[in-house]
């Protein structure tokens, strides 16, 4: 199985649940209690699209490799290869070197290894987007404008942070070029701005309107929703793992183990990289101003990238902290290492440029002397320049030697799913009524979850990382678990050594003590047959087992049907006005109940009941009528997602049609 870091493992049932149009509510993937997904619709749209291939028999691992991993690796190589075409048109070998530097560096390898495949895809396409905009700025035609807009939309689809970085680079390139270009008069300036700025931005906006529109209308800030842990100034100081030496040497601070928060001493062999990169400035000739400008542009980009990638660390770490609090968009960079992208792009141009120049210099030296002995090199293969080039490529591979020595963890190391987890999956899949599983202290990556059986992590549920506190709270939480429709409490078998840790290492004593503590809880009964996974069933409440919809009122008879994650049809019988209907998904004020029986002839619902908070977590609706009737429980932002999807689809069809037509015409 290819799984690790942030990359989840999806059982077939979960994979099937993901095949749908983009929905504004995520009922099981990121949070077992449900959460608004407007802020992450960009990537979940791609996830849903790739999940579709499971219907053709593709496993999750196959989907991961074909649609996420390979496009990242191959894409990053060719993306840098194409960007370097601007500078090294005739030198394929140098362009290949660009591709190698951009792909085989510690930052990209750890992004991939850490399972951040959305970031990896965005990183992969970033140089190509820059290339498209460089072409557009130098040749502002409608065709290039639309092509650049589509590329910009693709990078935004995979990761807004990388998109932000790349758009800033493009803006900087435009400003940089304007320093040297002839001043545009009013007649040429307006069409230039229209084609280079307005049209691509409009295309990006309309292609992404399906999530931008609801985000704007419902005033949701996806970053703020993560809370102070992610957005405070203390967080930025804590997450600034890279030192300045790391960032300028393109060395990821967690290389090679990729253990969160565990940084390593600087590895001196990486220091040669900035030496090679900035040595390119020596070879800038005044005779070739265009070349010089490009080298200078990428040098500035590298200097800025290295400065920002180190975050709050010295020198001048306060500047990043200030920008985090004041510059729009910087709040996305609680993990400043995303700025390594700029360093990688720059070095993929600067280093090959230096190598190319040294290569050319050595090529011109076929004759040399050592201690008065004259040497003449005639071989086309065994010569100084080829030795130098081979040596440099070997040096690059030496830098990433943990890859070849099998020392990299994460998704780059295939793992096998334990049989115990397969048994648990079969057991839960056989149950056809809605219930949740509760993982103490946290869900294991092979733990089964689906829309019918979402998994809840105790750490998230009790907002604590202290095992003792979690167990103590669990002891007094019987009714809370019943209200949350939690049927099973599970202590996972930590096959990957990620949960029961002491000093960042797996500790079997913590695992065993957790099981023995949970065994002592009186309302839990152990269910045998899952090997090292300890499964406990929660005693059903006296009033009967609760479901996704339930009510404290005994008289109420409730039946419901799931239409999609944002829409449920609920049949109510024997209701009394004022009875409560509890909807056990996380509270969100945008949930509403619509009384279907009170629809007017125009089809417009006349009675809408807003969701109120039940307890600390869930939604409740106060029933407005006596008797039996049906309700539609609906998540309102979905209306705007639907409108946005229509606009985005029309935009996509229009721009592709134009590009095909325009290409044929050319």
């Amino acid at each position: 199985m290819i799984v690790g870091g942030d990359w989840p493992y999806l059982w077939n049932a979960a994979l099937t649940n993901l095949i749908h149009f983009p929905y504004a509510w995520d009922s099981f993937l990121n949070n077992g209690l449900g959460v608004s997904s407007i802020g992450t619709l960009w990537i979940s749209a791609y996830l849903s699209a790739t999940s579709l291939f499971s219907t053709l028999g593709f496993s999750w691992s196959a989907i991961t490799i074909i649609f996420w991993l390979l496009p990242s690796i191959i894409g990053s190589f060719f993306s840098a290869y194409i960007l370097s075409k601007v500078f090294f048109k005739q030198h394929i070998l140098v362009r290949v070197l660009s591709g190698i530097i951009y792909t085989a560096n510690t930052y990209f390898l750890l992004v991939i290894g850490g399972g951040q495949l959305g970031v990896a895809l965005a990183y992969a396409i970033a140089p190509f987007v820059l290339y498209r905009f460089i072409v557009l700025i130098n040749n502002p035609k409608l065709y290039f404008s639309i092509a650049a807009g589509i590329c910009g939309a693709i990078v935004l689809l995979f990761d807004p942070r990388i998109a932000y970085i790349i758009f800033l680079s493009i803006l900087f390139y435009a400003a940089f070029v304007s320093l040297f270009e002839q001043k545009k008069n009013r007649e040429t300036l307006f069409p230039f701005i229209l084609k280079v700025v307005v049209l691509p931005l409009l295309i990006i906006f309309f292609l992404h309107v399906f999530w931008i529109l609801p985000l704007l209308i419902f005033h949701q800030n996806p970053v703020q929703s993560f809370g102070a842990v992610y957005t405070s100034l203390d967080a930025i100081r804590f997450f600034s793992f890279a030192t300045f030496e790391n960032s300028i040497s393109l060395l990821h601070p967690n290389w090679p183990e990729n253990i969160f928060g565990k940084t390593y001493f600087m590895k001196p062999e990486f220091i040669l990289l900035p030496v090679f990169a900035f040595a390119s400035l020596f070879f800038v000739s005044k005779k070739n101003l265009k070349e010089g400008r490009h080298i200078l542009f990428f040098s500035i980009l590298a200097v800025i990238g290295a400065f920002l990638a180190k975050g709050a660390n010295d020198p001048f770490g306060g500047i990043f902290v200030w920008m985090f609090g004041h510059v729009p968009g910087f709040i996305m960079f609680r993990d400043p290492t995303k700025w390594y992208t700029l360093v990688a792009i720059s070095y993929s141009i600067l280093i090959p440029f230096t190598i190319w120049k040294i290569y050319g210099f050595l090529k011109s030296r076929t004759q040399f002397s050592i201690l008065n002995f004259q040497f003449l090199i005639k071989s086309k293969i065994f010569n100084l320049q080829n030795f130098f080039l081979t040596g440099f490529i070997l040096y690059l591979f030496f830098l990433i030697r943990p890859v070849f020595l099998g020392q990299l963890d994460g998704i780059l190391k295939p793992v096998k799913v334990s049989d115990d987890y397969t048994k648990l999956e079969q057991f839960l899949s056989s149950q056809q009524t809605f219930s949740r599983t509760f993982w103490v202290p946290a869900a294991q990556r092979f733990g089964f979850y689906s829309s019918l059986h979402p998994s809840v992590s105790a750490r998230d549920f009790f907002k604590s990382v202290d095992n003792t506190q979690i167990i103590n709270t669990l002891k007094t939480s019987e009714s809370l678990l019943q209200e949350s429709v939690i049927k099973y409490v599970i202590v996972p078998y930590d096959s990957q050594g990620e949960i029961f840790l002491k000093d960042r290492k797996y500790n079997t004593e913590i695992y065993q003590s957790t099981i023995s503590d949970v065994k002592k809880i009186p309302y839990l009964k152990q269910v045998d047959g899952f090997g090292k996974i300890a499964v406990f069933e929660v005693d059903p409440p006296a009033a009967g087992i609760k479901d996704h919809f339930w009510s404290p009122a005994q008289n109420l008879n409730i039946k419901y049907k799931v239409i999609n994650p944002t829409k449920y049809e609920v049949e109510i019988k024997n209701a009394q006005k004022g009875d409560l209907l509890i909807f056990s998904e996380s509270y969100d004020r945008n949930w509403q109940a619509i009384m279907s029986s009170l629809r007017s002839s125009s089809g417009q619902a006349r009675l809408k009941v807003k969701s109120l908070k039940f307890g600390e977590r869930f939604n409740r609706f106060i029933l407005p009528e006596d008797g039996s009737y049906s309700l539609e429980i609906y998540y309102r932002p979905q209306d705007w997602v639907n409108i946005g999807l229509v606009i985005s689809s029309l935009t996509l069809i229009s721009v592709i049609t134009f590009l095909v037509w325009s290409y044929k015409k050319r």
Partner: protein
Amino acid sequence: MKNKFKSFHQWIVKNKGKLFTIIIVHFLLTILLYLPYINLIYLVVTFFQYLVDWILILVLFHPAKRKILVVGIALYGINYFLYLLKINSLVDWVGNVSYFMIATYVLFSIREIRKPKSKN
């Protein structure tokens, strides 16, 4: 070699005023930045006195652009050996100075490769 030391000595004698200015400013700044309230600047902009040193060097000595780049890159090379010797405090400092020098070279170069704009 002797001549080089001699010329280096002559250079120091010739520029002793400028060198003293830099040392005194650095010394004063270091004291100032430890004073109450003013130390807030230091919290936000660490490495501040070194930046001032660098600006003073640029203003007083007008070093050649090419020399700045050579020294900047050479310092990275020297840093390699400092890492091997595990002199970490010096490593950080040399790395930062090197960064300043390269950044300065890049900034100075923009002006140089600007082509005169046409007057139409």
